[in-house]
């Protein structure tokens, strides 16, 4: 029983990382109705920035906050410089642009920082851990909850959050009441970049830092976001946690590590066939 509990809780910890990245995907989806396939590579790149800052001698939390700020600016800049030009194009051409960004970040990271695997420190003191969860696992869950809380407060109680929601729901009317819709989109991308960087810095101590560390994580995050409902941040978190636990338990008890990705995906797709809008997603009814 102890082992089972341990596996489930460890799944919760990885799940909270998927949840953070899923939150980043939801941010961009809410703002622009696109799923950013390059989010994972973006988070990986942010983590390398954090690593460089720490390498330059900054303490962990300074590097952590600076990285979040840099990622925010970088995300907003990418939206303003590149994505803005494709906003009116077909979805598939934006997907290709995302693939382009993905390969650019992946290749740049390899070129700038090398392909060798680097270790990345965990900021949480070892004493925090107990018999069931390590300090890092607990810390990861905590950080994810803080991020979620901040987002909820931001969107529900600040004028800027309200303006962002308005801009995504009805851009034309928002523009008429004086909301700078273009900047709101950039803000959404910036937030996604910032949240993604947190996810990257949280998973790096577990999977180690290398240019390809995020490819699997992104897939789970994508699945998590869809499972929970792509237009619902709370759903994304729920989906992330579910996927994390599911993955860990399947890997440990049912089919082994070799096929766990496959089976996890099959189950998620199965759920989606039954509930196409995701667990918490709003069902859209189209008028004829």
């Amino acid at each position: 029983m102890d082992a089972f509990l341990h596996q489930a809780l460890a799944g919760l910890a990885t799940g909270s990382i998927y949840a953070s990245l899923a939150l980043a995907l939801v941010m961009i989806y809410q703002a622009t109705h696109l799923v950013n396939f390059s989010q994972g590579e973006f988070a990986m790149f942010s983590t390398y920035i954090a690593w460089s800052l720490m390498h330059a001698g900054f303490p962990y939390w300074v590097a952590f906050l600076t990285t979040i700020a840099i990622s925010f600016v970088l995300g907003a800049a990418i939206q303003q410089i590149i994505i803005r030009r494709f906003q009116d194009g077909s979805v598939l051409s934006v997907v290709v642009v995302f693939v382009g960004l993905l390969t650019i970040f992946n290749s740049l990271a390899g070129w700038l920082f090398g392909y060798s695997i680097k270790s990345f420190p965990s900021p949480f003191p070892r004493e925090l851990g107990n018999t069931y969860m390590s300090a890092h696992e607990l810390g990861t869950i905590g950080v994810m909850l803080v991020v979620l809380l901040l987002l909820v407060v931001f969107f529900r109680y600040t004028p800027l959050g309200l303006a962002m929601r308005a801009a995504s729901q009805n851009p034309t009317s928002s523009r008429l009441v004086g909301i700078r819709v273009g900047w709101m989109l950039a803000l959404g991308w910036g937030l996604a970049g910032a949240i993604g960087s947190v996810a990257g810095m949280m998973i790096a101590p577990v999977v180690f830092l290398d240019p390809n560390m995020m490819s699997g994580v992104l897939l789970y995050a994508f699945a998590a976001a869809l499972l929970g409902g792509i237009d619902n941040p709370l759903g994304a978190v729920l989906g992330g946690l579910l996927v994390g636990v599911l993955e860990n338990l399947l890997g440990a008890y049912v089919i082994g590590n070799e096929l766990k990705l496959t089976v996890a995906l099959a189950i998620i797709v199965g759920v989606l066939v039954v509930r196409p809008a995701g667990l918490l997603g709003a069902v859209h009814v189209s008028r004829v």
Partner: protein
Amino acid sequence: MSGEEHMPQKTEPAVLAVADAATSAQMSVPHNRVRADLLGVTFGAAAFAGLLCALPFTLSNYQVFQFTLVMVYAIALLGLNILTGYNGQISLGHGAFYAIGAYVAAILMDRYGVPYWLTVPVAGAVCMFVGFLFGFPALRLEGLYLALATFALGVALPQLLKSNFLEAWTGGVQGIVIIKPDAPYGLKLNPDQWLYFFTLFFVLIALILTRNLLRSRIGLAIVAIRDQPIAAKAMGVNTALYKSLAFGISAMFTGVAGALGAIAVQFVAPDSFSVFLSISLLVGIVIGGLASISGAIYGAIFIQFIPNIADKISNAAPWAIYGVFLILFMLVMPSGIAGGVRAMSHRFARRRNTAK
């Protein structure tokens, strides 16, 4: 932006004029112009055919092999374009059908001694069956959800191929090595040249099939489902059947491409069919031009040669250059190369008209 990969493109507009724009040209242009254009098209097509036949005798074996792969990708892209371009169903997992086609061919040749030419249609049939079956659950999924489901297929298949249950057939991680076929009937062609013509034969069949399919009742239904799903249903189109059928046909083309690719590369292994292949195929149809037959050829040229060019530009970060290429192409030609070429030929035609 120059090099041998652009050679076939110069004569392409003539060919694509037949494939894509024949109907619109006939409506908008005076009759004598049509005749002149037809003459030009025939001439262009003949020159293009001559060029295609001369190619393997002027290039090195490796370059011939590269062009064979271009044609293999072109067939796969035609298939994906039927599904994504014409039917509007996104697939991020077509590499899976390519892999199934490749493995069917390899297993038949290696384990059962089936002649290589027979494996190609068998691979197509198997993939059509699998694709048709996969089309059923996919019916409930649209847009992003379908993207995830197909992506899952693309991720899952290489892992399945590696797994222990199938190792007796697939050879596990090691894969299967195939022997390159020689030219039959004592033709004086080396194996690379023979495979080039062998693949060319299938490309032609695929092109003709696609063109006829799209003009047929089935093709109209497929396009109607993309543009007006509800209206199509109201008109009595069996959307479920045709969507699954589009999946099946699309998978068949891609499977044939996979079989041809396996014979050309002489090797199949799970890791050659990673998700990256699926993404490359999607990139290929979008860059080449969605819902356009010639786009499949442009896209195939892109995914075969642009990585090499990127590698030549920067050894250190070739994929960064590749990414820049992708973004630039989308910026300059939002509707793909075929769209760009079409817009350019329209502009020339207008200038010619006003000059008269």
